[in-house]
């Protein structure tokens, strides 16, 4: 479905997605992503290092509303600035820019 890894030193949870992020694929992902974020957000992390979540979109060629909902769900848990979207290709970058979500999602 997707890979995830946690870097304890940076307190960063990275999800690596690929392919077509349409509704059918995103729906079952949402719960898994949420439970992982909740699990790590509850870690006794230092106050000056809140949990960061990174969505790596290197292999993604399409994102749906369902994927944006996952982003919003994570954003509500980690607050703006702590959700990073990285390695998006030009077409995904343009999609996020047109959606007006570029600043909220911290697209790198």
């Amino acid at each position, binding site marked *: 479905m997707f890979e995830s890894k946690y870097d304890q030193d940076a307190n960063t949870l990275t999800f690596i997605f690929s392919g077509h992020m349409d509704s059918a694929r995103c729906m079952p992902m949402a719960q898994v992503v949420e439970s992982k974020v909740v699990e790590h957000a509850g870690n006794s992390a230092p106050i000056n290092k809140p949990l960061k979540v990174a969505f790596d979109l290197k292999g993604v060629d399409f994102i749906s509303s369902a994927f944006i909902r996952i982003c919003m769900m994570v954003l509500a848990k980690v607050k703006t600035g702590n959700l990073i979207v990285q390695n*998006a*290709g*030009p*077409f995904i*970058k*343009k999609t996020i*820019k047109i959606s007006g979500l570029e600043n909220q999602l911290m697209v790198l």
Partner: protein
Amino acid sequence: MNKINESSAESILTREQMLAKDIISKSTVAAGLFNQYTQEQTDRIVENVARVGFNNRVRLARMAREETGLGVWEHKVLKNVLATQLVFDNIKNEKTVGILSRDEQSGITEIAQPLGPIFAIIPMTNPTSTVMFKILIALKSRNPIIISPPRKAMKCSIEAARLCYEAALEADAPEDCIQWLPESSREWTHAIMTQPGIALILATGGTGMVKAAYSSGTPAIGVGPGNVPVFIDKSADLSFAVSSVISSKTFDNGTVCASEQAIVVEQAFASMVRDEFIRQKCYFLNADENRKIQAVAVDSESGGMNPAIVGQPVDVIAKMAGINPPEGTKILLAELEGVGKDYPLSGEVLAPILAFYSCPNLDEALKTCIDLNYFAGVGHTASIYANDEKVVETFGSLMNAGRVLVNTPSSQGAVGGIFNTLLTSFTLGCGAGGKNITTENISAKHLLNIKRVCRRRVNERWHRFDPAKYLDEKLEWNTAMSEFNKNY
């Protein structure tokens, strides 16, 4: 601001509002009279105005350079030629009067209808060419026009309008079909823009002016700033690409809003591109020089470009900044790491200064172009040098630009007529991104309302289908479509 009491004493009008009413009432009369003109009468007027404008191209160009202190007079001559000869060439055979088309099959007849008085706002950067261009397309569509000259180019703009008006009258145009404001001020433009008699505002200029036009409640086509990214792909002919960019960015010292603003290349190719720019007499600023140029080129408070550097050559800008590039330098290049307010030179600068980006790979280069495009020039123009058609198509899909120019100097390419078959225009539609209704180059056809006379024709499929079936809740889409489209 002088206030004048109307006889009714109900409302107090400013002097500008009173005079504006007078100008518009004259323009409205002209619109009524113009409505009777035939295609032949109209075309005679347009040709005479184009001829007189063309014959005065050098004098008007010199006047514009002298009055504004911007640009290069020889280049302004070329702009005047584009605005008269090539615009005329575009529109001369266009049908703009009466019945435009008649289709017996569909039963639809299209009839041209002029819009009414047009208010034309003129930018200081093209003060005579834009006047002549807007007058020609207005007259071709039988619309009277009111010119709002820029404050710093009053004399040359009004002279261009006056010459056109005399030429129009000589060809029997209605009186007051061309008028101009006697002064240039916010009060004046506001007074005219908000008059109900104005049918359309053709606004070319700064962001504030364009925004004011859209806020006036009158329909408007406004063209604001561009921020043209230039992607030079590794498949490009490098020497040709650099030479083309230089010829475009130095054209009239960079005053064209479609001129190049930033060069974007892949890292693996960057040193070759740098060397080629240097070989062709351009200069890469060091970090200290970069800061100094930024300080004179961009207003630190507003973040916009400093008007003092607009249309100035490199030596004048260098002197202002206190730097010493080699003599004969054509363009200054500033290497930047990012796009946005923290990188002031990543926005529009109408002078021979270019930002330069070296990106790790093709995807990152394209993403930088997207950032530049959306930062300050959405809807306007983008440019690519490449011979790989796949890269060209990808770039074209990614940019939000009315014009994506390929292997073409963008200043001259965007206005059309020289390097491509775009309509020659000094008002470049920027689509919804630029708050326009169109991405096309604006011409006479945009100043017409097309009426459609629709004769009765029977849609056989509709009449064959029993409408009572729609009332049956069990009728489903597939069945309905199948019966509706049945061909027997």
